[in-house]
């Protein structure tokens, strides 16, 4: 089963929830994989401290133009939707950072002047040896924009026989879709403030559009007002967990310690939440058949 932890707004506690859930699972010897899909700013391992090893490079195919063969017919530069190719009077220029690696230019070139090579976008890393939880993360190179490509490569390491927890990036656009696209369930983490609530509604729009069953965790509960709870009640959205606005949790977070390590009572709550998710999914399945 694949569970994604997402939120519209940044800094609501996605990583906190992902880590504590994964650690609660690994404590009861459940086979669990944790994926840090926030490849622009991956933070999970700051809290886990695993030794990481590179498992693969994420690459993007890019055109290499043979200037001898190129007749500057402009077909490639006219075709490229990303403006990665520009035709000058005497030659075609290529801008690697704009290229999405679609391969169209190489097919189109009537002179067969375009070959493809590979450009590095980032890396996929994994915790060395047999770690618990099993941990993978992606890391996008600085200055690169192909976030989704790194996330998609990272997700190839999901083992369908295990429970996979995916820590998604913030927002609602392509990197989020790439992360939560094919998961079985999505946990949306929010806080009950005007910003948190507004962005939660955006995130709900995304999971509904993708037809993913979901529930909500209210983090920093006690902060703000009761608008999220009222909304969830009216919409029939399950509130899976409320994590209080506790200075101790914030302080542990600031030092890079997942709070279930110091407050073990919370493991039960996270495992209870997982049972509630399974029940909800069983209900969804029943409704479908």
């Amino acid at each position, binding site marked *: 089963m694949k569970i994604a932890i997402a939120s*519209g*707004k*940044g*800094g*609501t506690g996605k*990583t906190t929830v992902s880590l504590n859930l994964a650690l609660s699972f690994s404590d009861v010897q459940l086979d669990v994989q944790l994926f840090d899909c*926030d490849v*622009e*700013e991956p*933070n999970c391992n*700051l*809290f886990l401290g695993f030794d990481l090893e590179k498992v693969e490079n994420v690459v993007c*195919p890019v055109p290499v133009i043979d200037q001898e063969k190129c007749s500057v017919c402009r077909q490639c530069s006219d*075709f490229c*939707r*990303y403006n990665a190719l520009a035709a000058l009077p005497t030659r075609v220029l290529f801008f690697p950072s704009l290229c*999405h*690696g*679609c*391969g*169209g230019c190489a*097919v*189109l070139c009537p002179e067969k002047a375009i070959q493809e090579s590979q450009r590095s976008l980032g890396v996929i890393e994994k915790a060395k040896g047999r770690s618990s939880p099993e941990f993978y993360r992606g890391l*996008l190179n*600085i*200055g*690169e*924009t192909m*976030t989704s490509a790194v996330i998609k490569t990272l997700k190839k390491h999901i083992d369908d026989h295990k429970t996979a927890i995916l820590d998604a*990036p*913030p*927002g*609602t*656009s*392509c*990197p*989020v*879709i790439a992360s939560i*696209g094919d998961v079985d369930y999505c946990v949306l983490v929010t806080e009950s*403030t*005007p*910003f948190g609530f*507004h*962005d939660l509604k*955006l995130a709900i*729009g*995304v999971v509904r*559009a*993708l037809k993913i069953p979901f529930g909500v965790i209210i983090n920093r509960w006690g*902060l*703000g*007002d009761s608008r999220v709870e009222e909304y969830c009640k009216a919409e029939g959205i399950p509130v899976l967990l409320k994590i209080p606005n506790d200075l101790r949790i*914030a*302080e542990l*977070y*600031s*030092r*890079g310690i997942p709070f279930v390590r110091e407050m073990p009572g919370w493991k039960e709550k996270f495992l209870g939440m997982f049972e509630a998710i399974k029940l909800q999914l069983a209900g969804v399945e029943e409704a479908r058949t």
Partner: protein
Amino acid sequence: MKQLTVISGKGGTGKTTLTAAFASLAKNAVIADCDVDAADMHLILKPKILEKEDYYGLEVARIDPELCIECGKCREFCRYGAVNENFEVDPYECEGCAACTIVCPNGAVSMEIRVSGQSFSSETRFGPMAHARLGIGEETSGKLVSTVRTNAKKLAEQYHKDLIVIDGPPGTGCSTIAAITGTDLVLVVSEPTVSGIHDLKRVLELTAHFMIPTVICINKYDINEENTQLIKNFCAEMEIPVIGRLPYNDIVTKAMLQEQTLIEYAKGSKCLNEGEFADQICQIWARVENILMGIQDKQNGIKTLKMKSL
């Protein structure tokens, strides 16, 4: 005209709250909300929309079932796995590259434009504002960020504003790059947590990569003073100015609930530490303005005329 972008790497460190406060302090500025994925600035600034425009993202391929001979070439070629077994295109996977249109032997694939959101030019109680709404689950937020910035520049020219204050998105990817390229100064709002520090270092690499002058503000500095010291030491080593620090204060949530900027809220507050908090923000803003004044104007829009000192 000068441009300041506020970013953070990590989400939720206080970018929007601080930028909104700057909006109420800046005398002659346009505000641009470039966190188009999860835009929140309008909740505080309550813009009155003057002009609305549909935003077209990348096109999406469509296969005409009448013409499709199910040869499978498009599905085989598509590098994004966007064509399914029934020869339909998944709009969430399609990157709009149009390669399928050239490999199809029967001309069955066409590219369709689609509205991916809206961009707005508005007025607020603090002056003009450019902002946008990205459609649910749409791609290419970087392109929409560029649209918002273009609109902000137009507003600045129309209303003779000499500064654009940009609220940027979290992360280091396409929308962040679109929000910082060509700006005169980046302010990074950091927090003294291990994630905050890690993400700060990544965005500093990014601003160094694009060679943009950068300053730091440490928010909630008192939640971990050791980490605050680490940030200061690191910045001193890298010669990046730390222009201020703010303590954790409930005023942030209180002001947000009142739909006010921190500056507006503090004016009506009798609480001493809330007034002090607002004063600290005023000082940070004064430092930002001072630094901006010292930076040579590189924008093409309005040239600042050099005055001869009489």
